[in-house]
């Protein structure tokens, strides 16, 4: 079942982010959200994840759907190891699998402060993948990753998109080439 966004309105003070915005998202595949900085891409992800409430309009098709989210910031628990940060949303087997695929097999027991920025990014991505959501929201997931890792992540996202909806926010057109659909948000 696809997700219908109808006449969505949202503003922050005097800043109107969405004014009767409507679109449709498929239940599978990769959708690229495109728009200038501050146009409302992150706000839309936050509304889809339930972290923000729309002031008008509505979204249907989200009912009982599990949503995973890679935030713009990594939002990792600093007292936990990489493995624990991922298994906390699923189980150890899943955590090991996804951390391994993202090249972190040897860093499982390191805590975020001991990891580089790119490694932390991968832990945050592994956490979202291990959660096995019906919808995977990704806000600039390629930040801090080198070309090789970007390629690996693109492949993973294409795999995941056969079973789930992947909503991708990125400024780099090259990174968005894997998307089957592009939605422009003009704010």
């Amino acid at each position, binding site marked *: 079942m696809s997700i219908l966004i109808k006449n969505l309105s949202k503003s922050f003070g005097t800043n109107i982010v969405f004014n009767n915005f409507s679109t449709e998202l498929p239940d599978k595949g990769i959708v690229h959200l495109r728009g200038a900085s501050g146009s409302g891409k992150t706000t839309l992800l936050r509304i889809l*994840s*339930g*972290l923000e409430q729309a002031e008008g309009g509505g979204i249907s098709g989200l009912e009982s759907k599990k*949503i*995973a*989210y890679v*935030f713009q*910031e990594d*939002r990792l*628990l*600093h*007292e*936990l190891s990489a493995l624990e940060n991922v298994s*906390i*949303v699923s189980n150890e087997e899943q955590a090991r699998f996804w951390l391994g695929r993202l090249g972190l097999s040897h860093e499982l027991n390191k805590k975020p402060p001991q990891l580089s920025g790119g490694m932390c990014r991968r832990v945050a991505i592994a*956490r979202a993948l291990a*959660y096995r959501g019906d919808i995977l929201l990704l806000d600039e997931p390629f930040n801090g990753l080198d070309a090789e890792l970007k390629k690996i992540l693109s492949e993973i996202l294409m795999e995941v998109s056969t079973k789930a909806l992947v909503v991708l926010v990125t400024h780099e057109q090259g990174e968005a080439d894997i998307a089957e659909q592009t939605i422009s948000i003009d704010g």
Partner: protein
Amino acid sequence: MITSTSQSNSRAVKALRKTAVILVWLLLWQIIATAVNKEILIVSPVVTAKRLVELATQGEFWLLSLMTLIRIIKGYLIGIVVGTAAAVLTANIKIADEFLKPLLSVIRATPVASFIILALVWIRRDNVPLFATSLIVIPIIWANVTQGIYSADRDLLEMAKVFGFSKRKKLFKIYVPSVMPFFFAGCSTAIGLAWKSGVAAEVLSLPSLSIGKELYYSKIYIETADLFAWTVVVITLSMILEKLLKKVLSGIGGRQ
């Protein structure tokens, strides 16, 4: 190897400096006592030390110190438990916050002496120091834990919401790590004040077997040497307790 040698050297220098500072203060005390030359007003450190040794040879000295220590630790622990519970309650339930906030302000603003005198009317005199100590500790822990709860990372709380963390997971993985530094700081601040208020309460309520009672009688019978000796005991116990607490807290903090 070189690092460890230089570290132990700097530690020795630090200890030496500390000892020198203490010696200078003791010397100053001795000079003032000699200049005043009235033991009823001020006794010298030598006389104080002599009296302290005399007291320490009596079994009752240790019993009195132990009883005061137990009373204050009990009040301190009750204060920590009640303060933490109140913080959790008021940080989570708005009506509880509105209802209990004035109480916190009243406890903070009321002089300890007023509480002690009121407690003397309300409860058994042996329990007055415990009550006074708790009342001093509660607002400190309450305020610090509340601050810790409010300082919990909003981003992490959002992450927990999206990934469906249970209440327990949220508590132990987000709130507890956020609260702990504030809680530890509160515990450290409260221990010194707990001692001061506990002993003051003992002086006013005179429970059997207490340092406060000895302080009171040394004042009544103008035994200044006793007054100084018991004050040294109070200071020493307070310092030992503070050091022990710091060790325990850093141990817990290190494990986290």
